[in-house]
């Protein structure tokens, strides 16, 4: 966020700076024309001056366009950075009790934050992955992960998120988040993970 806010003033300074820098060469061609007229009367002073002015105008336009491009790129970068940061802040795992797929009271605020994020970024889509701890059979856990992902999906659609923006998948106990074999690790591994699609 801080980085993103700082980028916009920086972009403005850049634009102005380039603008000031390219104004300087404009009067310059006027000076060399005088001695040139004295030593080389064949050349048309008017032509030379016209060419120089055209060149200066072209350079100025180029520089301004470049500055605009940079400013736009910086703004886009800042926007993406903010999107990424907002996504990271909102898309937090929720956890489950053993062999359960009920949304815990304490996780409802997390799901609200995910719904708010999706409202703030109408183009964003997310995948919900249901996971289980190692203390169950392979196949039953795949089904249980499916059920957990759908529980989170249902809760989010209940908060007004369009179903088309949510996809689900289950990894059962096949992709544990942590490798431990204690209550704390099992709790961490019984989850739904939310990721941008």
């Amino acid at each position, binding site marked *: 966020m801080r980085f993103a806010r700082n980028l916009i003033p920086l972009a403005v300074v850049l634009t102005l700076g380039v603008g000031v820098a390219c104004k300087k060469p404009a009067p310059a061609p006027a000076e060399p024309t005088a001695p040139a007229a004295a030593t080389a009367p064949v050349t048309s002073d008017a032509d030379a001056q016209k060419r120089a002015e055209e060149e200066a105008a072209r350079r100025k336009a180029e520089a301004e366009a470049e500055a605009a491009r940079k400013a736009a790129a910086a703004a886009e970068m800042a926007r993406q950075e903010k999107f990424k940061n907002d996504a990271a802040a909102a898309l937090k795992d929720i956890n489950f009790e053993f*062999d359960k797929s009920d949304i815990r009271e304490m996780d409802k605020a997390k799901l609200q934050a995910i719904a708010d994020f999706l409202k703030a970024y109408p183009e964003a889509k997310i995948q919900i992955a249901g996971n289980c701890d190692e203390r169950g059979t392979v196949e039953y856990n795949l089904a249980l992960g499916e059920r957990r992902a759908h529980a989170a999906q249902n809760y989010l659609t209940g908060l007004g998120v369009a179903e088309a923006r949510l996809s689900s998948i289950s990894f059962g106990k096949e992709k544990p988040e942590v490798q431990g*074999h204690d209550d704390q690790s099992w709790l961490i591994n019984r989850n739904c993970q939310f990721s941008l699609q």
Partner: protein
Amino acid sequence: MMKIPALIKAMNGVDRMRWIGVTGEIMKKLVLGLLFALAPLLSAQAPPNQEVVLSASAGSKLGIALPYPRISGLPEATVTNEFHQVLTKDLEEAGPFAVIQKDLPGATDAASYKAWADTGTEWLLTTAINRSAGGDLEVMIQVVDVMAGQGKNVKAVMSKRYTGKDGALRRIAHKISDDLMARLTGDQGVASTRVVFVKEAGRGIKEIYQVDRDGANPYPLTNYRSLTISPSVAPDGRLAYVTYKGGAPEIWGQRVPGGPQVKLYPPSGKAEGHCFCPSWSPDGKRLALVQSDRRGNTDIVMLDLASGRVRRLTDSNCINTDPSWNPAGTQLAFTSDREGGPQVFLMGDDGSNVRRLTQEGTYNGSPAWSPTGSMIAYVSRFEGKFDLFVYKLGEGKSYQITTGVASSESPSWSPDERRIVFSSGSRGGMQLYTTDLSGNTLRKLISLDGCQSPKWTRAR
């Protein structure tokens, strides 16, 4: 360890689950961290009611001796490693044989037969192995009944010639073991069988592998660098499995034996939920599989491979998974939590006549119908780990097969119904083991970590 069976006897009649718990505590103290070094001890108890499901006691085994082969044209080390040890192990593990380990001559005279008979040998297997300069192998075996052979001219009960190229010795040894089994016991052996399984190949990456029954020649059958799980093998060797290589889980496998591995289900653009756990019907024409619906429930559906037609067999507001066929292809065992926790149920292959099989315990699953159809192996969870059980349909009773601090999961029957292969381990390090139905001979199939979901097959 000898005290444990006595303890079990003393505890006859004690509630089964409590018995497991008490024994589990004792086991923990005894075994400590040496789980796998002492693996055979972990299941060295009979079920609490002292019944043994199937076991050939040492006394009733057929004594067979196999003197070292006469060899020409190839090194002794090759014959030792790729033939003699392989055949000895095959026969020892076949079930009905006791291999007599005596250094006596494999001569065909009455005195030699008498010497063998005195060691308890009933059958004497003599072998000659020749290798030509071109690398052609010829293995000739002869089996005589040494009891009948004393003092008389005896005819061999079995004479057979096997041929192959270099590298074929191991395969020939397995073939000899199976032929002996067929000739001497009438049963089809399993020495030539293989086990297909899942092996972890990195974080979130699993592939399908296969290995010979004796743990030799492990090699990968898939290389998707993705999550690939839940293999099933058709009677003609065709594979089916689940892979996440395209993102969502799909059923991939072979439409023809030896053919390319292609997507079997769902058809492109027709995903109506995710697919799991394919299981070939015994005739190889249908796949029972598991499909999730929009509400997060999972049902068992039936895919007819030829027509692509799909029929839903279960339709309840719950989890239904783990389909396992009876050998006739008319019924399925499966896991469902329709009555609360996961339990094993049976139903017809059209979804009719659903009835609950397991009655004890709060978490039962992974049913595996036995090759003759008379038993169903499954796992039951207690104190955070699973043990193997076998339900005998004729008796309507369950028997516990494994006991220990390790969790034992995913049972699959040997084709001869004598053993069960399963994954077992603690703290996530699962390896493959086989056990007989008494739980007395636990063997590690292969020393590989991160293995799961073994399927024992004759067809590959």
